[in-house]
């Protein structure tokens, strides 16, 4: 019987060589892959710019974004006012900068609400596919069937239009997205052999979620967060446009767009600037999300 696979001892050297090859691949730094991917590169740069402008606007803008100057109302772009002024003579560029604060603030908070509730609920649904999981999924379906816009209108009617209304409406409406993404990705990990192996080591279910599931789905979740962030910016602008969010004097891309439509004939550029800001910001976050997703896929091909 011993002749079955005889003559194959002493393969250690070959094994070791194979491993050396593989460790060279690891030296490709993560940031180089990041820069080589056009999506993550462009998306990253745009997001950095938006964040930088929001941070700058906290303590400096070319003009006070709320300062009225009737003498220079509806002035076109010039060296004094880079992007011109609006109907009250307020500097458009300063207002765009100030608006990025609101966009990021609303985006961050609503994504936070959606993840803080959605991720644990998704993990629960994956871990307990029985009755508990079904209940979680059906609740998610109910939330899913309730559009963000409608939720915002209801909330605005009940508590008045404010940033909080927008954050709550968008945040809550994205909870089911995170439940689903988390659950489906967690299920893949939970059904993997290495989770079976971890259970065979004697790991408890909670520890398996913490040690194996969460680290393995983190990139997917982060990519999803970035994608949803871009949608949040869009939704925030829409709600502000409808007058359900940020109140009048404060600058936001949605309110700027809303007031500019009265002056389409006089100064069409007024409409262009906030629209462009929204497009660029949305594009940045969704490119970043795509890029992170692609980097993850490239890594998992190992």
């Amino acid at each position, binding site marked *: 019987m011993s002749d*079955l*696979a*005889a003559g194959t001892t002493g393969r250690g050297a070959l*094994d070791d060589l194979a491993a050396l090859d593989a460790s060279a691949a690891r030296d490709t730094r993560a940031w180089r892959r990041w820069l080589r991917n056009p999506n993550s590169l462009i998306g990253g740069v745009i997001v950095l710019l938006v964040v930088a402008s929001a941070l700058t606007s906290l303590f400096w803008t070319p003009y006070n974004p709320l300062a009225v100057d009737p003498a220079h109302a509806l002035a076109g772009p010039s060296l004094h006012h880079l992007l011109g002024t609006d109907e009250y003579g307020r500097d458009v560029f300063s207002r765009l900068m100030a608006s990025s604060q609101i966009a990021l603030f609303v985006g961050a908070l609503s994504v936070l609400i959606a993840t803080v509730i959605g991720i644990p609920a998704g993990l629960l649904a994956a871990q307990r596919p029985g009755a508990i999981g079904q209940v979680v999924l059906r609740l998610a379906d109910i939330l899913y069937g309730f559009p963000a816009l409608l939720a915002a209108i209801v909330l605005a009617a009940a508590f008045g239009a404010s940033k909080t209304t927008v954050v709550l409406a968008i945040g809550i409406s994205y909870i089911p997205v995170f439940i689903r993404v988390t659950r489906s990705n967690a299920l893949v990990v939970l059904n*993997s052999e290495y989770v*079976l192996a971890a*259970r065979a*080591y*004697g790991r408890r279910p909670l520890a398996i979620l913490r040690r194996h599931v969460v680290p393995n789905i983190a990139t997917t979740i982060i990519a999803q967060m970035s994608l949803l962030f871009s949608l949040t910016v869009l939704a925030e602008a829409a709600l502000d446009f409808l007058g359900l969010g940020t109140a009048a004097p404060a600058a936001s891309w949605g309110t700027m767009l809303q007031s500019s439509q009265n002056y389409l004939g006089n100064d069409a550029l007024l409409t262009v600037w906030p629209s462009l800001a929204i497009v660029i910001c949305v594009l940045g976050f969704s490119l970043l999300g795509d890029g992170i997703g692609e980097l993850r896929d490239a890594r998992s091909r190992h």
Partner: protein
Amino acid sequence: MSLLEVRNLNVSSGALSLVGDVNFEVDAGERVGLIGESGSGKSLTALAIMGLLGEGLSASGEVRFDNEDLLAASERRRCELRGSRIAMIFQEPMSALNPTRRIGDQVGETLRIHQNFSRRASEKAAIELLARVEFAEPERYARMYPHELSGGQRQRAMIASAISCDPEVILADEPTTALDVTVQRRVLDLLDRLVDEEGCALLLIAHDLAVVSEVCDRVVTMYGGHVVESGSVAQIIDEPHHPYTKALLATSRALSVTESASGADLPSIPGTVPSAGQFPRGCPFRDRCDRSVEACVEMPPTLTEDTRTLACWNPVERVERVSDGAR
């Protein structure tokens, strides 16, 4: 009383029976081989022993470990036993390691779970364990990720993890099947040596009788979710009574170069293993068996004789040298 006793173990998926009335035991320090083709219920039996059956599968009967019924035990209790007193090695070393965690981290994981090792202490222990499973530079490999290791290296790492808490029994589910033929031998020898050094019992699942006969003391043959024959390695190899064991033996022998004559057809078992629920009534092997008789439509009783068991209506009684049959 044996260390591990499997009594009337049944595994079913709803109304569909996948493993039926499996009985065998593993004594302390004993090495038992569980053989059969894919789809015979070997892996399910092992998973049922570990309490790791997938969603929708349920086990009944008894799995007594150190006189404690594992099937009746709480999940909490089973978590305590898994890894510390009963360890398992899986078939696919590629997927049984978490791709995002370093080898040293995973090899030391069992020690952290069961013996409260700190991260640093388990890292140190992992390096020693890796050295025991013949890694030339254990410190370097401990820092690597699974994708940087070859299949054989990964399986050795899994073995290191399995022996880390000095278990009393190791269940090895086809530990060499997924490996290159060239490294199968090395991994098998390693497992053989470590089980010897640790003095633990081994339940080795394989579909190759040759592998089992080298490592094990006893053989249990499964087909269609049932144990069809069991006995000592010498008894089974020299004198298989069940036609299925005999056929397995013939296919296994034919692969060893020295014993197969040139020009002869490779012996094979006619037909394929049916999928679950498609097995014939009565003896599950009867429609592939060349010795089936009328009685085979009834399930044959399992007869025990000394150290052997057999479930067949028309066993191979005479001493037919299997290798002769292959020529």
